[in-house]
């Protein structure tokens, strides 16, 4: 591919499928299952697992795991519902674990 000056893209660590953009980062201060994670407002080329209720560090949430659409690697999760008022801002947004995504050529 030719050098493109464009949005900074993150890819799946396993198969380099483009999954999210740097510009969509809302917060870098999240904790994933095994380390740091980022909160993104949008995601692409991912498929979602079933919804389930999980007790996370910030309380009870309904989340769905997100998978890379090509290689089916679990990359994080999507917040479907938050049960506490202070956590409502997360609804509809995506968590990608830092260890599972890589910067694509930037």
């Amino acid at each position, binding site marked *: *591919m030719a050098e493109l000056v464009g949005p900074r893209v993150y890819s799946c660590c*396993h*198969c*380099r*499928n483009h999954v999210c953009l740097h510009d969509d980062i809302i917060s870098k201060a999240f904790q994933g299952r095994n380390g740091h994670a980022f909160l993104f407002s949008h995601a692409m080329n991912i498929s979602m697992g079933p919804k389930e209720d999980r007790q996370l560090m910030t309380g009870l949430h309904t989340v769905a795991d997100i998978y890379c*659409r*090509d*290689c089916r690697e679990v990359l994080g999760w999507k917040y479907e519902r938050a049960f506490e008022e202070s956590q409502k801002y997360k609804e509809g947004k995506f968590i990608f674990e830092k260890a599972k995504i890589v910067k694509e*050529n930037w």
Partner: protein
Amino acid sequence: MDDNVENYINFLSDDCLICIFNKLESESDRNAFGLTCKNWFKVRNIARKSIIFHCSFNPKVYKEHANCLSKLLARSPYLNLVSLAGLTELPDAALNQLRISGASLQSLSFYCCSGITDDGLEVVSIGCPNLVSLELYRCFNITDHGLENLCKGCHALKSLNLGYCVAISDQGIAAIFRNCPNISTIIIAYCRGLSGVGFRGCPGTLSHLEAESCMLSPDGLLDVVSGGGLEYLNLYNLKSPTGLDGLDRVGYARSLRFLNVRMCRYLTDDSVTAIASGCPLIEEWSLAVCHGVRLPGWSAIGLLCNKLRILHVNRCRNICDQGLQALGDGCVCLQVLHIHGCGKITNNGLASFSIARPNVKQRADEVMCIGPSIEDLFRLQ
């Protein structure tokens, strides 16, 4: 009871007993035979041709296997095959007893025996000169040095499984080709240290190569196919640190029949054309999840792949109705098409294809492995 009957059995010579033993087919019959008396026990051990420990997920079972392995090896001097799966703590010292069967051993499998190191391989190379097939899957501690020693001792090697041997580099691979003229099957899946240049000068006998998730460079790919005898090549999820596509080099493998480039994200139309024109004998080709292939690539396949029987295009993002039509217009020998999840293909396109090529079976399942089962090449005939 009749005294004479008892004596009769004692007069049977050992080779008669071996003949009788070899007709027994079930394991329980064979074990019962061995537990009859000391002589029959000796016969059972002489006639034992293989020790196979299957994978189990129970650590107690592994402990039992490890404990009785040395006794079994000590008693059985004519083994052809020893297969140990999952004995991760098996030390090199345990391999010393393989010398007892020594010259008759043809096939060894150390599947997931990560305790084996170069010292263990040295024992094998000295003790088992007639070795034909060796599996070192997930033996992380094997290095080039051990591999070189092994090849110098075992010239008859035909099949070698080095999956996940991450410490191996091109030097070790080159040593295989220097010393083993009959080598035909190699598995280097997940060997991240290999770039492929070690394959330079490989003989035409090399027919099967599994290089799943490797980081072969474009120059390395050229060397991999340089032998000219390659019939089966698996490059599933080939990693490219630079993002460049070196797969056009595969077009130099004139005898190639089975090609798996599933999930090769960087594969371009130019490379597809090079492969289609350079490999006229190709029978089965998997291009699943190859998003870089577009209409020029599909047209090239349709036009040039005249022996193609099975094609996989599952989840390709850039195959459209026109591409599908190009495949249908060509590929005269096509029998099966694996297709699903292709966003740009419409129901119209599929229907047109079905009408134009009613004899081609359309399947929605996605297959990871294509072609002949490589496991079979590691079993003795």
